[in-house]
């Protein structure tokens, strides 16, 4: 097991290294002078020169890369050009919205998808299954930002149950904050839940077709017992991968939903930074997201090994 973790860990570090080089390179290949690009067309030459200096653009490429990485390691992400505050502070503040939102949506998606997927698998071909398959087919096809707009129209504008957007801040009380996050979380979770439920269903059905389920039933188990005792744990293995991927999507892919609800989250920060050409914020926060994705995948790999003994002992 230790060996397994060690090899995974080394590949995690390698992935991070390559990813950081790619991100750095993308910013490097931006046509023209990054400082001029950031300041726009009518910038004073002196301002451009000052920014170049601040960005360390006068050093050699490898040196700048090392400087950037060293900064990331020590928590120094640079200073935002547009906001004029340290990027680390900016990101930390935004994470307090994005992270709870992502977790909220993930919890919703998983809580809906597991029982629904299981139900469909257990009732394969019957009305309940057809209903689930039909609904989820629709759920996958709905763009989440359009669904969000419909939610706003119904629950915020017509019924006035929830705010139409904005985030009051956690210091305004837990209930108010959760209320502000509920509609965005539902909008994010519904398409994800549809995908997850379908994967859950097909994964359970796949395992139900395995020989060991027949063995289990030959031991005297009912179909339901065989599902509970043998199919579930095996079916969970592919589902875990998807949950891992969904978490990273929810963290970063919430950009659009954050725009619909005017939430001050990480996605919106990146989006604004991109449109305002604040490359310092873009570079570091994209790297942070990639770090999150790779780390989550790492955790999923370890979770795999915990579920599947074949991975644990070999090697």
């Amino acid at each position: 097991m230790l060996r397994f973790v060690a090899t995974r860990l080394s590949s995690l570090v390698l992935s991070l290294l390559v990813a950081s080089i790619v991100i750095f390179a993308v910013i490097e290949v931006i046509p023209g002078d990054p400082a001029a690009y950031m300041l726009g067309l009518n910038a004073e030459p002196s301002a451009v020169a000052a920014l170049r200096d601040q960005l360390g653009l006068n050093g050699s490429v490898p040196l700048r890369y090392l400087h950037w990485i060293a900064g990331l390691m020590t928590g120094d992400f640079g200073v935002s050009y547009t906001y004029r505050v340290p990027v680390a502070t900016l990101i930390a503040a935004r994470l307090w919205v994005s992270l709870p939102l992502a977790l909220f949506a993930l919890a919703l998606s998983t809580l809906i998808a597991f029982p629904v997927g299981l139900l469909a698998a257990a009732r394969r071909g019957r009305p309940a299954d057809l209903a689930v398959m039909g609904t989820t087919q629709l759920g996958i096809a709905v763009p989440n930002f359009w669904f969000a707009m419909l939610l706003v129209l119904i629950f915020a504008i017509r019924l006035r149950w929830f705010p139409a957007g904005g985030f009051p801040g956690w210091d305004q009380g837990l209930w108010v904050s959760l209320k502000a996050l509920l509609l965005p979380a539902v909008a994010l979770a519904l398409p994800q839940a549809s995908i997850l439920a379908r994967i859950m269903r097909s994964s359970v059905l796949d395992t139900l077709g395995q020989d060991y389920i027949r063995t289990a039933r030959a031991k005297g188990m009912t179909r339901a017992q065989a599902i509970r005792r043998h199919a579930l744990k095996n079916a969970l293995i592919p589902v875990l991968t998807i949950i891992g991927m969904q978490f990273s999507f929810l963290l970063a892919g919430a950009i659009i939903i954050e725009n619909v609800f005017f939430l001050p989250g990480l996605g919106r920060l990146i989006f604004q930074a991109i449109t305002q050409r604040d490359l310092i914020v873009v570079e570091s926060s994209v790297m942070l997201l990639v770090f999150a994705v790779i780390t989550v995948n790492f955790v999923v790999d370890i979770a795999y090994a915990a579920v599947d003994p074949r991975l644990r002992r070999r090697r």
Partner: protein
Amino acid sequence: MRVPRTLIIGAALFGMFLAAALLSYLWTPFDVTALDIAARLRPPGAVHWFGTDHFGRDIFSMIMVGARTSIAVAIVAVAIGIGIGTPLGLAAAARHGGLLDEIVMRGNDLVFAFPSLVIAILITAVFGPSALNAIIAIGIFNIPVFARIARSGAVSLWTLDYILAARVAGKGRLRISIEHILPNIANLLIVQGTIQFSLGILAEAALSYVGLGAQPPTPSWGRMLADSQTMISFAPHMALFPGLAIVLAVLGLNLMGDGLRDLLDPHLRRWRQ
């Protein structure tokens, strides 16, 4: 062989949008570039079937023209994915466990680690918002998808005896990949192609919703939704119809994908017999 019902329904739904897109080159009920402030924000009715927007443009006509953008962007993005991803996957599988295989697989993992929407936004923002850059941004993320599908399909085929027979007949890896492997993974690629097609339509809508897709005056579904947002409380029809267009087009493609899988998958077919 019976054609699955999902394929018929899906093809009909998607065919409707394809037909509308093609027809829009010849005819639309109204000119989508002509502004008519007097007729602004009309609800659906006999003249304007889906109503008008805040500039008085006909929403039905805009959806017809918008279908062009959506379909074109998604098709080219899928073509990029298949065109680059499939050869990569085939080459990796031809030397399964070799260095190239390792590099392709690690490269795939790496691309998957990047938040695709964020990178797409970055690409379109840096190189300027346009339909072309949206295509490139979406297409790049299709490459690893097809590389992975092609590789996993090819790897299982490479273990079959008919591949060994072809090698005994003196055929090289390239020729075997083209003659024996590619035709037999075409099913997988077609099914995945329809799925990526529908994801491409969703991604294009998202990008143009935030203003990074096709630029005005070219109508696009995502843009129409963005425009409708501030008017949703008093003109909900502006948000309803473009959204429904996206849902139905994507639904049609997904149903087509399911149907094609049932039709083409020899494993499933054998099981049903």
